[in-house]
């Protein structure tokens, strides 16, 4: 049995330390997934906390079905974001993903292609539909496998590849300025 499975089993029996370790492992990526989808830092923090409270409450119902524990957490997070947009109806703001959250390093700055930066990507990502966002964030930001993403969004692996291709194409067109410039004019 893998280490994560052991931790989940202990946590299911009510071991808070075991769940604490699972929290430490998965919380940063769940927070990142949420903050890239909702933009606002405080909302992302509240949602992330709620996701882990829900996970801790419903952990006894969780069963391993060939996918990592994180898939289950992403599913809870995805539903939380859907509920967030359903009830709050917020608008994504350019400034919503705060710069202080992005831990820039000197090496990164050197590597950065100045034709467009992370801010542009964040804005462009926010303009995609939720499914395209999910696929791009999970595939390229969180390095999830196509199989895991397919299970998460309840589509076939082939469908995920198609969505990924279309999402990248749309993102590229936004970054190229076709949609980005019009957004700036509107703003």
């Amino acid at each position, binding site marked *: 049995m893998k280490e994560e499975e052991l931790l989940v089993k202990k946590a299911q029996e009510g071991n808070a330390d075991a769940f604490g370790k699972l*929290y430490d492992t998965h*919380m940063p990526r769940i*927070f990142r997934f949420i903050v890239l989808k909702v933009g606002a830092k405080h909302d992302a923090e509240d949602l992330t*906390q709620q996701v882990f*409270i829900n996970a*801790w409450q419903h952990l006894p119902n969780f069963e391993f079905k060939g996918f990592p524990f994180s898939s289950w957490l992403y599913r809870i997070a995805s539903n939380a974001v859907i509920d967030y947009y359903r009830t709050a109806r917020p608008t994504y703001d350019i400034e919503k993903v705060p710069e202080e*959250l992005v831990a820039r390093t000197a090496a990164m700055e050197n590597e950065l*292609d100045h034709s467009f930066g*992370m801010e542009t990507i964040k804005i462009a990502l926010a303009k995609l539909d939720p499914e395209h966002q999910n696929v791009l964030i999970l595939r390229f930001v969180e390095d999830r496998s196509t199989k895991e993403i397919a299970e998460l969004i309840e589509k076939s692996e082939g469908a995920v590849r198609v969505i990924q291709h279309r999402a990248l194409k749309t993102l*590229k067109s936004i970054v190229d300025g076709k949609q980005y410039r019009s957004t700036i004019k509107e703003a």
Partner: protein
Amino acid sequence: MENNIVLQLKRLKTITPDPVWNANARRVVLASREILRAPISSGMRYRFLWFAAPVLALGVIAFVMLPTSFLPAEDGGLAANGALNPQSIAQELKGFSIHVQIKEIRYQETADNAVATALSEITDSATQHLSPSLLKSEEANALNLTNPKNPSIDEMLDTVIF
């Protein structure tokens, strides 16, 4: 360009939560299950009944009152419908005002008679003997109790002794 986009997407991995928030959130999350699982004491278990009691009482009243409001009236219609008929309400109001006026007139007559009787008694000298103060003074004068040589006192004592 596409590779550049993928590269930029990968850079978003550097987004990290605030460590202070993280520490607080961790505590809240881990405590949440304990709070929900805490056993409920027997006193707390039925505490909600204090809030439910007035609601239940109102429910019972409504349950009893509502059906009786819709019992058939004498004219065959529903009592509630009859009570809400504007014509019958207007008729009731007319009768009500007449009864009030008649009662007021009767009261005024009685009050006037009482006042007239009282005034005539005050002014009539023939009825002065009814005054309690006058009777008392008359009684005292007749017996002349303060005089030790009063013969009527001796007569009264003889009557009592013999």
